[in-house]
């Protein structure tokens, strides 16, 4: 395998931005050396001069819908994994709400194998909590862990039965795999299309209230407290939801959470201002400006553990419809990092850059089973999974260039500042949008 030398780069190692410029030597898919002085160059070496760019541990997205098996007209593991690599990710977690759902060890294996041959990011599967994602009977969680499942979730919906969730928390306690909850009370959110409040009032669309998220979070926190099981709340969207999580964390409960790029950068007013453009239709719905503010504040306060895309691609024919008839979901893998970096700058860099970077690297890596903990760091001997960022790069989002099968996104034509420009998976270049090759 060809060796690679990255020269003159800034390095974020998963903890901090290292002082000065570094040179990183990659050999046999691993980080062989991180040095302040440029190592003497052998002949068989590819060199990239990354002056002015930041080299980070490969970014991790713990929530992506790859629609495979069963809904390949929307996305498949190949297109999704390649889209992820182009978007700056080296590892993504595939959600199990496929058709059939990933609720057994064979499908866990299928996702891993197909991901391996994709030529894109590493694909780690999540398995369902319940068989067929129905919320009745526990899925074979132990067997799925043996095959490589890294989360359990009935995402797309909450775990429908509280008693089952309680048992799953107890049963999975020895498995070192977290349960990821999609926090929603289906009775309260029933029929909801947009945020309850301003947006539902003006549009005439049924509102999905913040209470739907909060009620489920409260319930799950109580179960976590009682069972000692760890729960990860995904795509938290409301101020009140964040407050509950903050409280639970301060009590020392094993609670973690992630927020999405769209809930950090878009709000309910865009639904109305766009004339009900269905690209803004998503569940949980885009909330109000105060909620967006609260999510950023939660990042600054260290309440948020990860930024996860909830990349939810659909075919044009399911999305390019009048708002009320269109499917719920935002496709974002190939612009999510840029959207967040852009918003972070335009909000006056509300938190240190290191904090933001940790939400794509060391923090989500810490949510994965222990065998993957090296994914979130740059250190000698670790696999060379790397994401290179250019914080000054301006680029327009052009969805027609995407590897993803999605052809609609709310950021279409948006000019964003701050982009991933290279990704390396185990020392192999997956994506390169820069001419720094020497």
């Amino acid at each position, binding site marked *: 395998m060809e060796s690679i030398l990255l020269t003159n780069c800034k390095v974020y190692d998963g903890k901090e931005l290292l002082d000065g410029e570094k040179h990183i030597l990659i050999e046999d898919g691993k980080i062989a050396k991180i040095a302040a002085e440029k190592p003497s160059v052998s002949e068989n070496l590819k060199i990239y001069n990354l002056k002015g760019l930041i080299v980070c541990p490969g970014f991790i997205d713990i929530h992506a819908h790859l629609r495979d098996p069963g809904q390949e007209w929307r996305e498949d593991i190949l297109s999704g994994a390649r889209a992820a690599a182009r978007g700056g990710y080296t590892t993504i977690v595939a959600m199990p709400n496929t058709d059939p759902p990933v609720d057994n060890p064979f499908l866990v294996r299928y996702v891993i194998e197909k991901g391996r041959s994709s030529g894109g990011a590493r694909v780690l599967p999540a398995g369902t909590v319940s068989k067929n994602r129905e919320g009745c009977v526990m899925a074979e969680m132990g067997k799925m862990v043996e095959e490589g499942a890294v989360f359990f979730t009935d995402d797309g919906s909450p775990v429908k039965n509280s008693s089952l969730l309680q048992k799953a928390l107890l049963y999975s306690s020895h498995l070192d795999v977290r349960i990821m909850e999609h926090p929603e009370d289906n009775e309260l959110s029933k029929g909801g*299309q947009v945020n*309850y409040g*301003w947006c539902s*009032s003006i*549009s005439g*669309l049924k509102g999905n209230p913040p209470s739907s998220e909060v009620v489920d979070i409260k319930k799950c926190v109580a179960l976590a407290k009682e069972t000692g099981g760890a729960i990860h709340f995904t795509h938290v969207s409301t101020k009140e939801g964040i407050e509950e999580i903050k409280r639970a964390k301060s009590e020392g409960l094993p609670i973690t959470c992630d927020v999405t790029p769209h809930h950090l950068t878009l709000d309910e007013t865009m639904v109305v201002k766009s004339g009900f453009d269905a690209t803004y239709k998503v569940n949980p719905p885009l909330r109000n400006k105060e909620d967006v503010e609260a999510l950023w504040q939660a990042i600054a306060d260290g309440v948020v553990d990860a930024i996860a895309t909830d990349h939810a691609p659909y075919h044009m024919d399911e999305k390019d419809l009048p*708002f009320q008839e269109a499917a719920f979901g935002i496709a974002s893998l190939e612009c999510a990092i840029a959207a967040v970096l852009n918003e972070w700058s335009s909000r006056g860099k509300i938190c240190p850059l290191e904090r933001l970077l940790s939400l794509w690297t060391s923090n989500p890596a810490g949510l994965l089973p222990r065998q993957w903990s090296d994914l979130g760091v740059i250190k000698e001997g670790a696999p060379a999974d790397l994401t290179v960022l250019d914080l000054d790069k301006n680029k327009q989002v052009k969805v027609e260039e995407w590897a993803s099968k999605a052809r609609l996104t709310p950021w279409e034509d948006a000019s964003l500042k701050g982009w991933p420009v290279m990704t390396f998976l185990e020392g192999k270049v997956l994506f390169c949008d820069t001419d720094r090759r020497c």
Partner: protein
Amino acid sequence: MEWKHKNLIDLDCWEKEEILHLIDQAGNMEDLLNRPIKKVPALRGKLIVNLFFEPSTRTRVSFELAEKMLSADVVNWSASGSSTAKGETLRDTAWTLESMGADAIVVRHGAVGAASYLQRKLKHAAVFNAGDGAHAHPTQALLDIYTASKHYSSLEGLRIAIVGDIVHSRVARSNMIGFRTMGCDVVVSGPKTLMPPELDYYGVRYFKDPREAVKGANIVYLLRIQRERQEQGLFPSLDEYFKLFGADEELISLAEKDALIMHPGPINRRVEIDSLVADGPQSVILEQVRSGVAVRMALLYLCLGGAR
């Protein structure tokens, strides 16, 4: 005045002067309707398609009459019995109609955003919203404003009380915006389960007691209560609804002496309105229906270039 609108999706961005100009024109149109020979050639050679995905005899017939009075060519395209029943999308239907040469499409659709969606998808044809889900029904609001204007020299400062199912009502949304634009003091009442959670955008005030809302009103506007709302558990029974919020003579007596009674129709007697009120001397419910044709004529005339 220079007329800048080509479409009508909702009234959110219409100015007071524009609405005044339109109701002026509607007055002229109504004069035309009273002449022995009613037709004028203003839209001769224009093709207008009435694309209705929800049954609505009133609105469709009103548009159709307006179109025919202006000598437009008219096609009625209803969802049942057309290709839409076979799964053709709204987009394909609209493109098909545009390819056939439609100059304007009047659309009624159950989904919020259908009219603005069509406007985005069409290259040339104008779009007139005849109701999109619970979002907007702007021509209803225009005809209501026109009807009220016939009884008051100016609507500025008048109080209008809208009572009933606001949250599910496109009529209420368009009327709250329309009457506020005209300078009215708009108040609403009804059970809290039928109110939108946020009314600031509309600049209207909520009274939980309908008597408080109606007190001193110049116009009392009742909304149709659909039976399914009771089935959805939003109030316990139609009978109780009438008892608490129905417009009977006692409630109406709290309004100004000659207050107008309005309703978009069709009415549910003894649910939202008592017959003595619906058929009483203050009721202008049938006048509203008559206004519809004149107002829609004025709208089509102004937007489709008949004025130029």
